């Protein structure tokens, strides 16, 4: 009798899933509760519209995600959809064959909506591997009040020379000019990378990464380091910056203890949550300054540094996973994130919903940029990118010369080839 009951139970169990035949595991690293809520609501909505698909939303914390990814991708338990910064790390994954090409599933309409930049960021050897979601740009966030006090305005910082003068002025006013979280390294690499974007430009950068000529030891890359060292010579950073991580530095800026913070647009919300009060700087207290231009640089003055992040698919992901993400990338869904100031969606038209004026500006900057350079530590892969981070921090510490910095990056490129 008992056996019969169990058998009936099993039968019931096996018949129920016929309604939800495919489970799509979706692994994200989003931490802002409002954004997560929109994501989960979207998943529910999709499930309701597609009863044969179940979306299983999973979360991993950023650092844990990175630590786990290599192993995760080599097991059956790998999620179907997971977050990606693109760049060299994704190239490695493609090369190892752990990702699924999705070109045959994604519609032309979806491709068009993501634009060339979005599609290119996730294409390797002509194959599409992922769907871009959002763009970001690194800018100087400024504390309006402190800058006013020092008598410095955004226009004074249009060029690197003007920027250096401004930093000195801020310092003379008794204010810490710049907050930086150098212990995490990547915040420091923004300076070197942006200066490379300005001095070298896209063509020289691409030549250098493929090891042509002098590679990263060529003149514009050395010049980038030298410019950076000119800034360092002014001792512009907060006390103890080498022991500060991004969170600390961001909170420092949010507390109004430094005038400037070179960071991605996401810092708008992060500086708030990391400030001592929890309020940070309000929209009115903030301003943004694009990274200064340099004299005689080969890069276009409008070129930007930032990210294009998105979603990629494990080798064994079903078509349904791609279909779900295609729907998720639609203007309709992505507009919700724009309206909620979660991020700047790449899907065309979705950014129109951005409520935040800074995000609007940044969205325009990126659209107008001839080259939107991806964070070098992502673009160049974990290995070379790691070296870029290393040398950037060591420059802030005067531990190496601009020449040495450039040569170390070149060496890393040579080693990787």
């Amino acid at each position, binding site marked *: 009798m008992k056996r019969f009951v169990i058998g009936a139970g099993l039968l019931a169990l096996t018949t129920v899933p016929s309604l939800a035949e495919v489970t799509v595991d979706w692994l994200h690293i989003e931490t802002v509760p409002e954004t997560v809520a929109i994501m989960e609501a979207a998943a529910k909505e999709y499930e309701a519209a597609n009863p044969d698909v179940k979306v299983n939303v999973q979360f991993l914390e950023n650092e844990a995600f*990175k*630590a786990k990814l*290599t192993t995760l*991708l*080599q097991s059956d338990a790998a999620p179907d959809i997971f977050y990606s910064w693109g760049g060299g*790390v994704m190239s*490695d*994954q493609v*090369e*190892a*064959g*752990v990702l699924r090409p999705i070109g045959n599933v994604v519609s032309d309409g979806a491709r068009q909506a993501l634009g060339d930049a979005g599609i290119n960021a996730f294409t390797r050897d002509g194959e599409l591997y992922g769907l871009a979601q959002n763009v970001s740009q690194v800018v100087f966030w400024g504390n309006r009040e402190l800058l006013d006090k020092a008598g410095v305005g955004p226009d004074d910082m249009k060029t690197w020379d003007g920027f250096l003068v401004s930093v000195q002025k801020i310092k003379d006013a008794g204010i810490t000019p710049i907050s930086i979280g*150098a*212990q*995490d*390294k990547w915040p420091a690499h923004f300076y070197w990378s942006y200066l490379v974007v300005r001095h070298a430009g896209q063509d020289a950068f691409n030549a250098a990464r493929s090891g042509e000529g002098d590679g990263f030891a060529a003149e514009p890359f050395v010049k980038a380091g030298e410019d950076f060292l000119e800034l360092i010579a002014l001792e512009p950073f907060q*006390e*103890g*910056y*080498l*022991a*500060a*991580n991004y969170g*600390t530095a961001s909170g*420092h800026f949010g507390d109004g203890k430094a005038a400037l913070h070179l960071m991605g647009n996401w810092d708008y919300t992060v500086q708030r949550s990391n400030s001592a009060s929890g309020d940070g700087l309000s929209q009115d207290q903030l301003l943004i300054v694009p990274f200064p231009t340099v004299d005689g640089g080969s890069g276009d003055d409008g070129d930007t540094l930032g990210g294009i992040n998105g979603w990629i698919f494990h080798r064994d992901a079903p078509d349904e996973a791609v279909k779900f993400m295609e729907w998720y990338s639609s203007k309709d869904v992505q507009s919700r994130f724009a309206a909620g100031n979660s991020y700047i969606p790449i899907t065309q038209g979705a950014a129109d919903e951005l409520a935040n004026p800074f995000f609007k500006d940044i969205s325009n900057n990126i659209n107008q940029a001839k080259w939107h350079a991806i964070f070098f530590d992502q673009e160049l*892969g*974990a*290995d070379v990118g*790691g070296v870029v981070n*290393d040398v950037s*921090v*060591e420059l802030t*510490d005067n*531990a190496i010369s601009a020449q040495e910095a450039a040569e170390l990056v070149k060496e890393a490129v040579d*080693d990787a080839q």
Partner: protein
Amino acid sequence: MTTIGNRPQHLTRPVSPTGPTVSARPERGTDTLKRRFFGNSSVALVLFIPVTLGLFSLLVVMPMIEAASFSFYNWNGFGPMTKFVGLDNYEDVVTHRHFSKAVRNSFLVIAVSLFVQLPLALWAALALTENNWGVNVIRTLFFLPYMLAEVAAGLMWRFVYDGNYGLVPAVGDTLGVSLPFVLGDKFWVMPAIMLVIVWKYFGFHMMIYIAALQAIPKDVIEAARLDGVSRWQITRYIRIPMIRSAILITVFFAIIGALQLFDLIIPLSGGGPSHSSHTIVSFLYQFGITRMKLGFGGAVSVILFIVCVAFTIGYRRFLMSRRWD
């Protein structure tokens, strides 16, 4: 259970004493056959060794051998290892510009472990051998840091060292001096880390000493006391010599532990500033694993392994030779 015959029954028979009496051997009535079976040393070996050996080989030694084999390849952890590079990774490691610093730091940690941590642990153990309520509380307190997760300990000490809001600047204010941001200072970062190491691990060594000290027969000490031997002399000539093997083993643990140390470094300083606070293994982790250069990481591991083996053999030899006096 039943398939293994009556062995489990026999083995799980309640052991009469939780207490110390030696009389707890099997009762006379035990079946002779069974006794002979279990009396045989080869049976004991078959029971006692293979599971351990199998588990250890499978989950520890084989992964280690595989990790060591990475060192001959250029491999990022994905897909098959195809790029054989011979000894290139080893060359990259020893010529790496931060490697020598990491080695030096590891030796610094060894020195602190041996000359600060162990004496402190021994001193505390000698003071805390007796059993009473107060001693218990203190002992537990001293052992508490060891029980904390490395990440937790690292985070706590980041607060202590924080140059803006931590204890260090508070002390500086009281003394009227401005103290450096210790974790951001190339000179102070290692002393700061070593202080945390002592804090976290001295309780571990102390517990080993206490366990050994309590195994010393009480009447030996009692007799010495009755003979009027002073406290210091009892400690110097009886208690310390009698826990010699515990001391030798903690020296071994301290050195090997210092050479393998890394999980405190990452949350504390991340190896910075400018890579001045890496130990050998945090160097390995930073430049090998997080950068997905598993060949490089494998090479560091093999080098460290060889150093550890050499040390272990040397230490054994040293102990053997000392046996004679």
